[in-house]
């Protein structure tokens, strides 16, 4: 499902005299209409396709009117391409600043998956304005935010740009009653670990297995147990889904079977009914029950399909390895496991994911392991992955330890970089250094690995670690919890330093309205996973807070690495 489907379906567009809809492809325009309108993301490839199409029309001596609508905004490079292709002036354009797509009651997505690559890999800050704009929109809709916190270079830039915008248009929202008390901005590169872990809450698993697009998923024939796929909208409207989405997978079966029993009981009630009751039942309850029945069977089907797939790929063993990596024991065994994964040509992304997890948790691979694993990876999945490795190294996702340099030396170096003002200016050049993960130290400081003795009861979770089977508290969410609790970074300086710095906090002097203090806008720059969403929902329930998540896109390990 595309973002457009979520807000305007074909019939709405037809009501507005849209004659026909086409997907932009590398093909001549089939439409016979003499007005063409293109709705585009400002990507050069798309603009080039439009240019090709118009030039083909021109060559055929066909005159039409063309309009491009760039969403959420136009980039100057797009204009450059229009000009270079010689169609500048033949096309008119407009911008549609459609940047916030509410996926659910508490998730707003900007649907910009390219944000991650553009910013973190290429260093292009083109989306920063878009995000600042979105913040400003939220700010003007829901009253001024009272407190903003953040960590990460990008978060800081977005924040500055947003402040700038807010000042420019201060006039119109001063008198509004604030509805959102806190805003927390976080860069994805502050916490890669969480994004790289296998997800085990239901919604995350569904995303990892079937890929949720714009809040909707395509369940294939193996789930629907029929010969066609069904598109299902997954949100809090779905009564069955809303009860299981945040649950640990092991818990989902129980809940589903309980629901099935309840449903059976509801149906059974009709046995003792007289005509009138029956009439009532049919007119009032039956539809709901049927609906629930349909949903229930879908989710049971999905569970079965997930189970089948996961058993086939030794999911248990995989989780065991991940947990070992997070806790930092049996590293050699984990490396052997990863090596075997690679040698057996298990999916390239899967192998890469645990490889990256190994690197981050271990502060880079030893040169010997790095070389051997890299070689084997390229032998298994193709030599062109040389480029992949280069990119991952740049991102700090998969690195080689600098020989002879101990962890502390590295930390010193990093701290020097961060505190020294002059060095900060050049921080881009050193960012790969600064981004070095000191995962182990951070994990210890924040208590990310629960020390519980014995079994962790996943049915009655104690903390956010339940989203990873009680083995690990998502770092991103833990930072938010800590900072919100302390209303700032006081006492967390060391953690912030280990995370690469760029933390900030600003508080407005305006009187706080108590209701708004319970509402927190969590902004993820570069994507957030459903596991993080579930963890924040849990935290909200525990603390009586309401988290609203604003993300550049919903992500997971596969999307992260593919991009």
């Amino acid at each position, binding site marked *: 499902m595309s973002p457009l489907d979520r807000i305007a379906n074909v019939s709405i567009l037809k009501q*507005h*005299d849209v004659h026909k809809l086409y997907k932009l492809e590398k093909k001549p325009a089939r439409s016979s209409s003499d*007005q063409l309108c293109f709705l585009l993301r400002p990507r*050069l490839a798309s603009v080039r396709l439009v240019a090709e199409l118009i030039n083909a029309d021109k060559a055929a001596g066909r005159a039409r*009117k063309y*309009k491009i*609508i760039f969403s959420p*905004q*136009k*980039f*100057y*490079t797009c*204009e*450059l*391409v*229009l*000009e270079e292709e010689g169609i*500048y002036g033949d096309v*008119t354009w*407009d*911008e*549609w600043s459609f940047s916030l797509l509410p996926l659910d009651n508490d998730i707003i997505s900007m649907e910009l998956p390219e944000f991650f690559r*553009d910013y973190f890999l*290429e*260093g*292009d*800050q*083109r*989306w*920063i*304005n878009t995000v600042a704009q979105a913040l400003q929109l939220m700010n003007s809709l829901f009253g001024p935010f009272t407190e903003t916190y953040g960590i990460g270079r990008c978060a800081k*830039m*977005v924040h*500055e*740009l947003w402040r*700038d915008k807010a000042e*420019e248009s201060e006039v119109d929202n001063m008198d509004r009653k604030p509805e959102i008390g806190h805003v927390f901005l976080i860069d994805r590169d502050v916490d890669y670990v969480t994004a790289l872990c296998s997800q085990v809450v239901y919604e995350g698993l569904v995303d990892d297995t079937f890929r949720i697009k714009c809040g909707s998923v395509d369940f294939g024939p193996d789930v629907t147990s029929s010969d066609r796929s069904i598109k299902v909208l997954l949100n809090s409207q779905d009564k069955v889904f809303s009860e299981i989405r945040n649950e640990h997978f092991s818990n989902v079966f129980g809940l589903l079977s309980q629901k099935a029993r309840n449903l059976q009981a509801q149906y059974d009630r009709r046995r003792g009914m007289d005509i009138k009751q029956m009439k009532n039942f049919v007119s009032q309850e039956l539809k709901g029950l049927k609906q629930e029945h349909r949903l229930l069977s879908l989710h049971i089907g999905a569970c079965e399909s997930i189970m089948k797939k996961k058993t086939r790929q030794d999911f248990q063993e995989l989780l065991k390895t991940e947990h070992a990596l997070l806790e930092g024991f049996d590293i050699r065994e984990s490396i052997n496991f990863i*090596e*075997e994964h690679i*040698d*057996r*040509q298990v999916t390239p992304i899967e192998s890469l994911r645990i490889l990256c997890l190994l690197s981050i948790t271990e502060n880079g691979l030893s040169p010997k392991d790095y*070389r051997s694993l*890299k*070689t*084997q990876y*390229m*032998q*298994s*999945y*193709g*030599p*062109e992955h*040389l*480029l992949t490795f*280069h990119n991952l190294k740049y991102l700090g996702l998969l690195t080689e330890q600098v020989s002879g340099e101990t962890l502390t030396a590295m930390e010193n170096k990093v701290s020097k970089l961060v505190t020294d003002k002059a060095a900060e200016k*050049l921080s*881009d*050049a050193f960012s790969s250094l600064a981004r070095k993960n000191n995962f182990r130290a951070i994990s210890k400081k924040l208590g990310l690995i629960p020390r519980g003795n014995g079994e962790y009861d996943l049915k009655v979770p104690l903390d956010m670690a339940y989203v990873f089977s009680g083995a690990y508290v998502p770092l991103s969410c833990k930072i938010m919890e800590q900072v919100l609790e302390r209303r700032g970074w006081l006492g967390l300086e060391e953690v912030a330093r280990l995370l690469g710095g760029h933390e900030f906090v600003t508080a407005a002097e305006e009187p706080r309205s108590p209701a708004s203090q319970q509402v927190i806008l969590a902004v993820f720059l570069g994507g957030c996973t459903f596991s993080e969403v579930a963890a924040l929902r849990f935290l909200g329930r525990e603390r009586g807070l309401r988290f609203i998540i604003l993300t550049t896109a919903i992500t997971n390990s596969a999307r992260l690495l593919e991009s």
Partner: protein
Amino acid sequence: GPLLQSERPSTPGARARSGLGLMNRTKGDEEEYWNSSKFKAFTFDDEDDELSQLKESKRAVNSLRDFVDDEDDDDLERVNWSGEPVGSISWSIKETAGNSGSSQEGREQLKSRNSFSTYTQLPKPASTYSLSSFFRGRTRPGSFQSLSDALSDVPPKSYAPELGRPKGEYRDYSNDWSPSDTVRRLRKGKVCSLERFRSLQDKLQLLEEAVSMHDGNVITAVLIFLKRTLSKEILFRELEVRQVALRHLIHFLKEIGDQKLLLDLFRFLDRTEELALSHYREHLNIQDPEKRKEFLKTCIGLPFSAEDSAHIQDHYTLLERQIIIEANDRHLESAGQTEIFRKHPRKASILNMPLVTTLFYSCFYHYTEAEGTFSSPVNLKKTFKIPDKQYVLTALAARAKLRAWHDVDALFTTKNWLGYTKKRAPIGFHRVVEILHKNSAPVQILQEYINLVEDVDTKLNLATKFKCHDVVIDTCRDLKDRQQLLAYRSKVDKGSAEEEKIDAILNSSQIRWKN
């Protein structure tokens, strides 16, 4: 506000003249020239202090900016199908559907209520409406006049053709946007001339303003301008110390596909590895295998790290082999004389496949070939130094798929110096068993390998999982685990040979059970 778009010299001649002026003067002259011309531009008959006048107008106009901006926006940039201005998408849709007259009227009213409407109604040169016009280079055809032309007819005054305008109008055309204002306007997606930032200092200030605003789109817009108006060397030199801008330029060059300039840039920055990688990346766009091979050959000498150089060399060699194998096998297959190809037709070409896939292919179709041939597995193993583990895994998968159990057997059999044979596997026999099972090996074969698993628990688990009854029973007997054997008895079929065997063991008096 936006009314203050600079008006560029309107005739081609004027543009050329200004260019030539720069070329023909020494630096000192030049400053004087610019200063004087600028000074003259603001000499009005009825004014004493031109500068204060200018400042005042700037203040006034800046204070109006927000007010006027919206108006301007609509006027200049938003145009619907029929060329009429519209404010938003929804509007444009409505207008396309219905009549646009009423809204147009409303806008006119709005305009006349605006006391500054005279500003908005000023004629604006079409070229300033679009940003692209500011990106337009001096090199456009017709923009240069001949040298003599330019020299003969260059009174310094004529550089400011708007001099003769009435005062009020002149003020509105003043092009006094500061770099910071300019960048702000660009951020809003508005039209703004960059053309007047001609000195290097101005250009760099503009760039720095853009960078400090953090908006990548604006940074790139400024870079496009700088790229066009600065020589490569100067541009590179200045960007070398401006990392954020540099990364934007690199991304921009990648995006528009200006590979040549990108490579020049890396060369200038002495980023040899990126240079090499960037060159290497191009092979992905070459479809023809021969051409790709030739291209890879050119990559071999590039300044990669020692480790990566070896990978590039391997990549080249691999494709070279694949081309040979592919040609040979396609021929064999179409001739239809070779049994293996008839029985198992190839599903896809081997070209551009990873090494391990190639090895699998070779183990599948060319297993018995002598080491001397390019397509033999042993040759591949040697050429690419494939580790034992990897080799055995792959060969095992291929031979098991063909159900060539004898080959599987040979794979793990080693002879020691005394001539005894022994089974050894670099990957652990439990993996071997799993792979064999996946290829539905018969029970006897599975059994043999399960017995080779050293760890007893793993062995029992595997045997139970794959229903190798004999192994389970024997292991239980060896462990003297009566309870487990009893439990297993309930799992086997009634009256089967296995049940009999279990009973025999359970009844045996020879065994001293531990439980």
